[in-house]
């Protein structure tokens, strides 16, 4: 179907891709796996010839025998959307905000001259129904749809002309796990129905394991290994594949804790937001983000808080940190209401890039939590100690944050949380923005620090694998309420609440028999 031979790409003087070769058969699902910066997305754009200015490609791409790099731009335009479709990662930005969804799907038909205006509109509505948007009128605008619905619109527009190859670049990375399962099922169904080929680009081994017939593993612009999915997973021939696999399955060595006395107690917490008024007169409508949540966290334990976007888990986290007022209930740390600036409680955020003031040196950044309690005389020594605890060096205190990688920044964030020798650290999606290999090392570090400093963790995440790896107990949150609570292993292995069951079922997993062979071998 499509044959890629010796594809190399440079952007300016920067080498991006080197000698990439693969073929995808008709009706086949081909998985392209790699960490960020491996060149997997630019491989896709090379096939579409939609590269940024200053890009130079070599090699050949043949789609059903036609050499794409020899075609004129006009011929390429005729091919795009008709023979090859593309879905990109961000459903929030991939659709034109000022055009109705129906028009965006119909446009594919119109620009290729395959239908008149009325006919295109009718076909677009049919396509939208096929991708599961039968209930959504085609005259809606993208902002009126959820992330999952938008991704369905993008799929409808991409497959409107039944292309022979569909390229999906991280199509579910920005989505919740239950939505991800639905979108993956939709893609699988379309492949089977239309007999098209699918090139699925992802960083998630578990996603390709469940979808792809064959996979290729990319690292630093090269394909290091490819073959049938099962065979690649069983053999793990290449060291990088092995490393990737180990990292994605990684469970840090940690001693489970029952926990001592109650450290944090949340009693019937309620948080309302006032929404903008609908008209100049009248009351503000109210959104209840947290609806009477109660739980306790014991000293020394690691408690997971799992939920999808919009579940209220981040709002709850900010309330626990004393950053948001409650409209009902109480949050107590060691028996007293929580307040911002309490040295016994610290936080680590998700985004390793937005978590630091770029104008301050690391030493000052790490020492910031001293603000409320007062700066101790040995502050500099404490900063050095904290940096060394996260396996950075004391000399790093003199550097600026832009000199560090994402993983290193997350270590600095942890050092900042350690500086006041807290009892509780709230971790808000601390590894979600990191590549799997970096994530594994950060999880190891968190496990080690918990032992060493007798810390308690409140670990907020959407990722069940992370919860399983690092928590003793787990709370499952949905629509502002906690629907299930219990020992982590018990909840994940035998969920009782229907929502937890749905969540566990939706989480993609590498088949256990593939894993089994690796352990024996």
């Amino acid at each position, binding site marked *: 179907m499509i044959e890629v031979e010796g594809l190399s790409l440079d952007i300016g003087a920067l080498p991006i891709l080197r000698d990439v070769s693969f073929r995808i058969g008709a009706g086949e699902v081909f998985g392209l796996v790699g960490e960020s910066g491996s060149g997997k997305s630019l491989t896709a754009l090379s096939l579409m010839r939609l590269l940024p200015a200053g890009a130079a490609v070599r090699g050949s791409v043949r789609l059903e025998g036609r050499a794409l790099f020899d075609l004129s731009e006009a011929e390429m335009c005729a091919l795009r959307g008709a023979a090859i479709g593309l879905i990109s990662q961000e459903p929030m930005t991939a659709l034109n905000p000022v055009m109705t969804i129906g028009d965006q799907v119909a446009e594919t038909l119109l620009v290729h001259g395959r239908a008149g205006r009325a006919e295109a509109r009718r076909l677009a509505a049919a396509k939208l129904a096929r991708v599961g948007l039968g209930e959504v009128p085609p005259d809606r605008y993208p902002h009126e749809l959820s992330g999952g619905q938008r991704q369905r619109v993008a799929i409808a527009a991409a497959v409107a002309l039944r292309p022979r190859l569909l390229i999906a670049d991280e199509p579910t990375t920005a989505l919740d796990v239950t939505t991800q399962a639905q979108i993956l099922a939709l893609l699988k169904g379309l492949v089977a129905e239309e007999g098209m080929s699918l090139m699925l680009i992802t960083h998630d081994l578990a996603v390709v394991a469940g979808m792809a017939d064959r996979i290729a593993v990319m690292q630093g612009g090269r394909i290091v290994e490819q073959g049938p999915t099962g065979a690649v997973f069983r053999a793990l021939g290449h060291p990088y594949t092995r490393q990737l696999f180990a990292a994605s399955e990684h469970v840090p060595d940690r001693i489970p804790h029952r926990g001592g006395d109650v450290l944090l107690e949340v009693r019937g917490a309620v948080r309302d937001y006032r929404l903008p008024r609908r008209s100049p007169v009248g009351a503000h409508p109210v959104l209840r983000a947290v609806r009477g949540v109660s739980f306790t966290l014991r000293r020394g334990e690691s408690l997971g808080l799992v939920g999808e976007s919009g579940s209220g888990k981040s709002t709850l986290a900010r309330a626990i*940190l004393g950053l948001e007022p409650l409209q009902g209930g109480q949050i107590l740390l060691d028996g007293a209401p929580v307040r911002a600036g309490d040295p016994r409680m610290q936080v680590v955020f998700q985004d390793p890039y937005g978590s*630091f003031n770029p104008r301050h040196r690391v030493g000052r950044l790490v020492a910031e939590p001293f603000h409320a309690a007062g700066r101790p005389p040995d502050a500099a020594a404490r900063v050095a100690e904290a940096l060394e605890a996260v396996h950075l060096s004391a000399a790093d205190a003199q550097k600026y944050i832009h000199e560090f990688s994402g993983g290193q920044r997350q270590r600095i964030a942890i050092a900042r949380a350690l500086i006041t020798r807290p009892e509780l650290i709230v971790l808000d999606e601390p590894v979600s923005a990191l590549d799997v290999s970096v994530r594994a090392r950060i999880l190891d570090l968190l496990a080690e620090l918990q032992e060493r400093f007798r810390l308690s963790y409140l670990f907020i995440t959407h990722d069940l694998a992370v919860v399983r790896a690092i928590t003793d107990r787990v709370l499952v949150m949905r629509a502002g309420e906690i629907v299930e609570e219990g020992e982590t292993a018990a909840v994940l292995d035998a969920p009782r609440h229907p929502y937890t069951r749905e969540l566990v079922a939706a989480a993609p997993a590498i088949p256990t028999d593939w894993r089994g062979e690796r352990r024996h071998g």
Partner: protein
Amino acid sequence: MRVPVQLVAGGALAGVFLALALVSLVWTPHDVAALSIADKLRPASAAHPLGTDHFGRDILSMIMVGARTSLAVALLAVGIGMAAGVPLGLIAAANRGGLIDELVMRANDLVFAFPSLVIAILITAVFGPSAVNAILAIGIFNIPVFARVTRGGALSLWTLDYILAARVAGKGAARISIEHILPNLLNLLIVQGTIQFSLGILAEAALSYVGLGAQPPTPSWGRMLAEAQTLIYTDPALAIIPGLAIVLTVLGLNLMGDGLRDLLDPRLRRIRA
């Protein structure tokens, strides 16, 4: 770091006029207050490199002193705008959605609703024409510009995690505004400052042209143009030279602004209006 070419070119252009203005403080080729009808309307010569005007004054000397007037008025007006606008913007952003924010923004809209030149004319007419009143009139209209730019930039910074981290550390809104928000807005403010500086020069020229800027005998570019207008049929050079001085200074500052923007933050794209 590569220095953008506009910054170099613009800086050089604006630098020439800045140098002329500074030199005029201690020395000019001729006394600009001394009238000498005998020397009137001389073409360019060694004694008068740009010639003389209808009162026999040396044009180069007038351009030099005029540069001082223009730059001083515009710079002080930017100072007024920043001194009042930046704190207002910071306070509004710190109280986003609150009553203070609403008040500041509505007051801003109100100032924007007044045609700036009309109000400048009104102010200078009511309080008498002078350079100080020109500074005030231009400065008042710089306030909402800086307030708006500061508020917009601060609002996006307030959503960042490092602000949350500072709040977790127990820092209050005032401290966060000064320690975390303001330093990260400096680039934005420098760029906007350059733009307002150049707009101030244009505004000062317009006010002096209609006689509401610096008063005689202080030379200013705008009034040189006004006086040249009646002589445009016979001595067009008198109208062309001060105009060129304005254009080159403003062009230099605008180029500098673009260059600074590219240098300080390539992602920063302020819409200039």
